[in-house]
């Protein structure tokens, strides 16, 4: 404390800028022991996936678009878990005590975490594209060279990773505890799919609401209007709904 404390808060005082909050959230993602190794692990698994899919057909189907689609699979599975940990880690490790006493507007904290996830997804997208480009060039011997890649495939691939990680953030915010958050994230879609498979009347809604169907077809590129609508309804159930619950719980829950 300086020699003479004013004991009032200057009226011109500003909140920490949102961009700074996002930077800090990104820093938090990688500055712990587990945080450091998880993204490296995701990148490594992505690389291995690309190598395997490049070699498995002796390069015959190793077009850039094919490798790129395959490269997204590990990320689409692991980024939601990173998203869950990004939110729940703070509640489990109780660093929320420090975070919320520095940024009392918890909605800004959660928004910063969402923004940080989007930035992280872009990073993951770049890794996926780089790995697939390198191996398409090295191994690809399909007719017409390594083959081009449509802007739709790239854009929808990016959207796929972004929504995957946001779904994790939403589940994390709704559940707030790491282990149950991850378990529920893995179980609920599986249970849903099993139900839809078993109960005939649910089968028709499967494409509209199951994560495994239309949403995961995003990287294929050419989606019809109906399919886009199906992506929308699926995301409403698995992203918007848990995010709405999470937005409420994250902001109102007492910190222990």
């Amino acid at each position, binding site marked *: *404390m*300086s*020699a*003479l*404390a*004013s*004991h*009032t*808060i200057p009226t011109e*005082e*500003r*909140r*920490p800028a949102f961009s*700074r*909050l996002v*930077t*800090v959230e990104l*820093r*938090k993602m990688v*500055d*712990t*022991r*587990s*945080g450091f190794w998880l993204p490296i692990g995701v990148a490594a698994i992505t690389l291995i996936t690309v190598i395997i899919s490049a070699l498995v057909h002796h390069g015959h189907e190793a077009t850039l678009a094919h490798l790129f689609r395959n490269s997204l699979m590990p990320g689409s599975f692991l980024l939601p878990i990173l998203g869950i940990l990004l939110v729940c*880690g703070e509640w489990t*490790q*109780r*660093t*929320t*005590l*420090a975070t*919320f*006493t*520095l*940024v*009392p*507007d918890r909605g800004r904290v959660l928004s910063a975490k969402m923004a940080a996830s989007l930035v992280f997804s872009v990073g993951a997208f770049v890794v996926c594209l780089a790995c697939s480009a390198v191996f398409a060039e090295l191994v690809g011997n399909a007719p017409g060279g390594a083959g081009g890649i449509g802007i739709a495939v790239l854009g929808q691939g990016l959207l796929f990773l972004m929504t995957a990680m946001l779904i994790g953030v939403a589940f994390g915010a709704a559940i707030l505890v790491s282990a149950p958050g991850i378990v529920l994230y893995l179980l609920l879609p599986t249970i849903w799919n099993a139900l839809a498979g078993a109960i005939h009347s649910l089968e028709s809604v499967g494409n509209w609401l199951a994560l495994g169907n239309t949403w995961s077809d995003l990287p294929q590129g050419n989606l019809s209007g109906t399919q886009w609508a199906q992506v929308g309804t699926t995301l409403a159930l698995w992203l918007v709904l848990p995010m709405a619950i999470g937005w409420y719980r994250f902001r*109102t829950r*007492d*910190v222990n």
Partner: protein
Amino acid sequence: MIEANSLTKRYGARAAVQDVSFSCAPGTVTGFLGPNGAGKSTTLKMLCGLAHPTSGSSTLLGRPFSQIPNPGRHIGVLIDASAAHSGRRGRETLALSAQLLGVSDSRVDEMLELVGLDKSAAAKRVGQYSLGMRQRLGIAHALLGDPELLILDEPANGLDPEGMRWMRGLLRDFAGRGGTVLLSSHLLHEVEAIADRLIIIADGKIAAEGTRDELVGDKAMTRVRSADDHALRSALRGFAIDVSVADDGALLAEATTEQVGDVALSAGVALRELGSSRAGGLERLFFELTQGADADAPSSDPGTSISAMEASSTLQETVR
């Protein structure tokens, strides 16, 4: 400046904190004292916006906590020293908050030096820290934004005697420069040496508050043994001095040692033991006020039984 107005926190039918009002003035250290489970932490969390009061309100520096744009620049908070990411290095823990607050990175090193965490300790992961080191890191974290108000929950927990002396100096100095300190403890001796004012909380309610002298009252209390207690007792009563008998048979007179000595001389009674028991007055008051609450506090919490045992043994020493 801290103002708490009728803060109440209910969990179902149970009131963890009930109608708690107090204020803390700049330049003072206020000790928030009570057994574990009395509602201290819940109250502090409500002040800092970490828990939402069922009713009541509070302001810090004239505003509710949530309305302060960059609270870390004004209010240093340490609610629980063990609430740090165990996989993050000590220095990084501070550097993250420094970035958020917008203070320079060199401030991090200054604070580490201030709390006595050297370079090798700062480079370790917090998971490897002892409780005392976490406490020091937590205090460094609270001081990072150069605040004018400190809210510390059980800051002495895990500190060795040297650490406690260090912290006492640090907080006295902070208040001496005009800062406001509110710290909690379940151990009276931890706070009575630092605090100007005490708020004793039991069962979620404020049981007593004031300066040490106000709490004990300015009535002096003297323990005395003599060759003829019966005669001394009548003589003291002759001077309108209230006398009671302690458990071990010694007399407790509501008078100064000088007065009791004079009475004994005039009565011709030889003294065997004479001493002021004022020092124990606060301890006795704390024990009396919180005794009922102790029984209600969760028995699994070792701190509660320890504080009760300490209080009762000191009480017996005082009486003896």
